[in-house]
C-alpha cells in the first residue's frame, strides 16, 4: 500500500512539472512581493537598528523564507478537493481502494516536494541575490529545520483538507476557504513575524495550530529557537499535526457516510 501512495505522490510531482510557465510567473510574483516587503522593512529599520529581537538581516531572511515556503505550507486559493466535491468527481476518489485522506495527503506531499525544489529554493536564492542577506550557518539549525519543514507541510495539508471538505455541507465554500487561508497566513506570522505582535496576541498565536505552519520552521531557520524551547515548539507542532489529522479524518468519514452526489 505504501508503494501505491508513493506512486500517487510521484504522479502529483510529475504533473506539476508540466506547468513550467505558470511556475515561473508565480516565482516572479513571490519575488516581487518579497522585494516590496523588504523595502518596507529596510525603511522601518532606519528608525532603530533592532526591534523585537530582530535586526534588519534577520527580518529580510524571514520575509524571503516566508515567500519561499508559502506554496509548500499554505497555498493560497487551494480548492482542488472542494472542486471535486462540487463536480461530483469526489465519488470516484471515495470509491478508490485506498484511504481517502491518505490519497490526497500523498498527492499534496508530491506537490509540496515540487514546490520545495522549483519555487522555494529559487525564491530564496533570488532574495539572496537582490538583498545579499545570505543563509544562517549553524548546522544544528539546518538539521532542526529539516525536521520542522515536513511537519509544517503535513500540518498545512490537514488544514487545507479541513476547509475544503466544508464543501460537503456548504456548496459555495470558496469564501470560507479564502477567510480560512487569510487567518492562517496572519496567525502563522506570514504577514508580520509573530515576535512583533503585541505580547497578548503573541501568547494566543503561540498556542494556535498556525504557529507550526510558518513561525516555528522560520524561527528555527533563523537560529532563534534552540535547546528546550526548540523541543517544546517541535512538540507543539507534532501535537497539532496529530490532533488535526485525526480530526479531519473523522470529519471526512462523517461526510463520506452522508454524501449526496452532485453533478451529472
Amino acid at each position, binding site marked *: 500500500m505504501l508503494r501505491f501512495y508513493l506512486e500517487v505522490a510521484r504522479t502529483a510531482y510529475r504533473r506539476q512539472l508540466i506547468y513550467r510557465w505558470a511556475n515561473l510567473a508565480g516565482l516572479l510574483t513571490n519575488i516581487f512581493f518579497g522585494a516590496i516587503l523588504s523595502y518596507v522593512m529596510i*525603511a522601518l529599520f532606519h*528608525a532603530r537598528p533592532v526591534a523585537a529581537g530582530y535586526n534588519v538581516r534577520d527580518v529580510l531572511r524571514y520575509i524571503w523564507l516566508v515567500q519561499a515556503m508559502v506554496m509548500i505550507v499554505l497555498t493560497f486559493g487551494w480548492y482542488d478537493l472542494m472542486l471535486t466535491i462540487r463536480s461530483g468527481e469526489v465519488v470516484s476518489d471515495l470509491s478508490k481502494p485506498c484511504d481517502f485522506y491518505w490519497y490526497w495527503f500523498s498527492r499534496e506531499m508530491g506537490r509540496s516536494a515540487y514546490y520545495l525544489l522549483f519555487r522555494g529554493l529559487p525564491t530564496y536564492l533570488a532574495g539572496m541575490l537582490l538583498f545579499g542577506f545570505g543563509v544562517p550557518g549553524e548546522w544544528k539549525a539546518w538539521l532542526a529545520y529539516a525536521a520542522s519543514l515536513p511537519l509544517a507541510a503535513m500540518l498545512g495539508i490537514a488544514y487545507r483538507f479541513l476547509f475544503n471538505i466544508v464543501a460537503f455541507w456548504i456548496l459555495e465554500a470558496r469564501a470560507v476557504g479564502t477567510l480560512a487561508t487569510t487567518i492562517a497566513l496572519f496567525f502563522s506570522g506570514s504577514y508580520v513575524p509573530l515576535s512583533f505582535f503585541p505580547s497578548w496576541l503573541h501568547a494566543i498565536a503561540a498556542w494556535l495550530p498556525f504557529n507550526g505552519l510558518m513561525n516555528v520552521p522560520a524561527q528555527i531557520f533563523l537560529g532563534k529557537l534552540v535547546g528546550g524551547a526548540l523541543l517544546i515548539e517541535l512538540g507543539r507542532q507534532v501535537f497539532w499535526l496529530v490532533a488535526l489529522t485525526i480530526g479531519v479524518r473523522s470529519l471526512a468519514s462523517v461526510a463520506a457516510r452522508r454524501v449526496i452526489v452532485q453533478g451529472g
Partner: protein
Amino acid sequence: MRSYIQSMMSNLLLDLRLYRRLIAMQLRAQLQYKMNVFIDIATYLSVTGLEFVPVLIYFGSFPSLLGWKVGEVALLFAITSMSFGLAELFGAGIDGFDETIRRGEFDRVLLRPAGALLQVVSSDIRLRRLGRITEGLLIFVLALGLLPGFSWTPLKLLVLPLGIVSGALVFIAILLLGATLCFWTVETTEITNILTYGGRELLSYPLTIYNQGLQRFFLFLVPLAFGTYIPTCYLLGRPLPFGLPGALAFGAPLVALAFALIAGATWRFGVHRYQSTGS
C-alpha cells in the same frame, strides 16, 4: 464636424444607457442570493482588514517609516485600497476575460451589434468587492483620527476624489492590457496580477522607500502613483520625489485618461488580430 460630434455624443449616451441596463441586470441576479452576497462582502472585508493589521503592528515597534507617521501611512493605504476596490468592482468583467476567450465566447460578443469593450466591461460586477471599499473607508476614518493636525481645504476635497477615481482608472487600464494579452496567450498572465495586486501592495507604502527604478516605473510608465501617492502627498503637504511640483495632483485625471486611451488603443489592435479559440 458638428454632426460628427453630435453623433459621437449620442453614441456615447446609448452606450451608457446599455451599460446601466446590463449592470442592473447583473445586480438583480446577484441580489437573488442576498445572504450569499452579504457573507461574501463580510468575508472580503475581514480578509482585506487582516492585510492592514500588519501596518498597525509595525508601528507598535517602530516610530516612523522614513519619516511617515502611522496616520499618514494609513491615509495612503486607505486611498490605495479605495482606488483598487473601485477597479475590482467595475473591472470584474475585464478581469474575467480570459474565461470568455478560452470558451470561445468572444466570437458571440463580436457578432452582437454593440461595442466589444462595452459588452466585456458590463458582463460582470462583483458586489463582494464592496468589502475592500468598505475597508478603505474604515481605514480612512481611522487615519483621520490618527492625524489630529489635519485640516481640509476646498482644493484638498477636490484632489481626494480625483485621485481615487484616477487610480481606479489606471488599475482598470492595466486589467484591460492584461485582457488584450489574452488574444495571443489565451491564459491570463500572472504579469497582470503582479501589476494589480503587486501594485496595490507597493503603493500602500510611501513611494520613496523603493529604489528609483521602481519609483519611476509607477510614476511615468504605469502611472498608478498619480492616483494614490501623489494625491496623498498633496493632502499631507509633503514634497514629491524627483522635484515634481505638488500641483501635479490636479493632473491625475489627465494622466490616467492618457494611460487608459493607450490601453484602449492596444485593445482595439488586439480585437482586430483576434483568431478564434475554443472547442
